């Protein structure tokens, strides 16, 4: 009997139940909510399922899956640590997280996004580029609020980029300006991107009239193959000369797009769009989620960052829709202001939201391709915004 009791006691003491804290339980709850939203409500499941599972894994105590053995330890000449361990003795997700910290994953994601992006709607309606620019407004509103809350300019800039609704750009900029905030910023950026169908519609509805939402936009002109091939090269050279710091991101975006459009490297284009992109999304999603360990994550500062990220997202949507309204007036009702909300980047979720909202008020409306213009412009806009923040605060 004693043997069984001591066995059960030992089992209990070594189990995760004794190590479980209230912070872990809160984060496990958050993971369950995210999984529910992704699976039952289909809110961007490709992003939300890996992120939610990463949160779950990081908050199951005792697994060591996100332990960092290299923390505060010195590497020897053979790559071993002072304590005798090796970098590869760290938790498996911690090792994979190096891809996030080094900006390898964000750049590869941009390669995939470029290969999946059709710049045709943007080329046929260049005004949509301005919507992508206006939808960066939230970045600077959040920046000012973050400064007022006492964050340093570098921290404020990193937090505010969440408003660009562009996960890779947020990770890239945070790594350069405030790497200690990488975990909450990356998690907030990706979570809000996945929650776009919840965040944007009420703002779009509040800022537009029924008449504006019902506007049916005319069909876009056909764009030639030459234009599509020349565009990524010319734009990259132009932006790289103005803002050299954004070349890692925009260079990969435009390379991916050239793969797609040039028509002679279909295998590379296919790999960038599908296999490679899927692999990187899995690794990035799970590792970003795994940064949300309850004990280190549930702090007032983190909650402040999450709140600021939401503020940035809201004001970015507001900026895009307001410029959409101005264009509606200037073009005498030819532009549906709802497509302005797609300027927040987050390809193609934001464009799909504009499409769905437009259809609610006019079932014959088809805004998706019109919204893709500002949507892909938002990718360029957020990268440019990051470049300017880097220029001002590095």
């Amino acid at each position, binding site marked *: 009997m004693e043997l069984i009791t001591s066995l059960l006691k030992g089992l209990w003491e070594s189990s995760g139940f004794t190590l479980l804290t209230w912070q872990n339980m809160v984060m496990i709850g958050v993971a369950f909510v995210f999984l529910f939203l992704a699976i039952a409500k289909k809110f961007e499941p490709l992003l939300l399922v890996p992120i939610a599972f990463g949160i779950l894994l990081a908050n199951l105590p005792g697994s060591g899956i996100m332990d960092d053995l290299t923390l505060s330890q010195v590497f020897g000449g053979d790559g071993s640590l002072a304590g005798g361990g090796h970098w590869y003795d760290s938790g498996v997700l911690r090792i994979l997280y190096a891809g996030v910290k080094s900006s390898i994953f964000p750049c590869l994601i941009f390669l995939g996004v470029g290969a999946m992006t059709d710049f045709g709607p943007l080329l046929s309606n260049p005004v949509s580029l301005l919507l992508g620019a206006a939808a960066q407004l939230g970045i600077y509103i959040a920046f000012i609020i973050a*400064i007022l809350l006492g964050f340093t300019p570098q921290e404020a800039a990193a937090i505010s980029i969440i408003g660009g609704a562009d996960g890779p750009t947020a990770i890239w900029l945070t790594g350069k300006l405030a790497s200690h905030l990488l975990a909450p910023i990356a998690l907030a950026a990706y979570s809000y991107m996945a929650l776009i169908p919840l965040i944007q519609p009420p703002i779009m509805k509040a800022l537009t009239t029924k008449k504006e939402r019902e506007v049916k936009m005319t069909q876009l002109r056909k764009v030639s193959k030459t234009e599509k091939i020349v565009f990524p090269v*010319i734009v990259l050279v132009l932006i790289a000369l103005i803002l050299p710091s954004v070349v890692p991101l925009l260079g990969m975006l435009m390379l991916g797009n050239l793969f797609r459009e040039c028509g002679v490297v279909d295998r590379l284009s296919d790999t960038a769009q599908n296999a490679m992109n899927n692999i990187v999304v899995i690794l990035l999603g799970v590792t970003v989620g795994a940064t949300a360990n309850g004990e280190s994550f549930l702090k007032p500062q983190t909650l402040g960052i999450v709140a600021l990220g939401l503020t940035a997202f809201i004001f970015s949507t507001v900026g895009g829709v307001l410029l959409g309204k101005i264009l509606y007036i200037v073009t005498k009702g030819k532009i549906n202001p709802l497509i302005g909300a797609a300027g927040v980047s987050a390809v193609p979720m934001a464009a799909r939201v504009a499409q769905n909202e437009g259809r609610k008020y006019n079932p014959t409306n088809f805004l998706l391709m019109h919204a893709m213009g500002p949507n892909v412009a938002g990718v360029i806009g957020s990268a440019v915004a990051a470049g*300017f923040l880097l220029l001002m605060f590095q």
Partner: protein
Amino acid sequence: MFDINALLNSLPYMGKGMLGIFVVTSLIVLVVNALNNIPEKKENKNREEK
């Protein structure tokens, strides 16, 4: 406490940032417009020659 000086000091960053984004975007719009025109002119020329 609301710090009016911090607000006033950060407003120029907002102005510079948004201006910068719109300047770069406007340049891209010009490039796109130029790209839009090139093929049309060539096609028109070909038609005229025919």
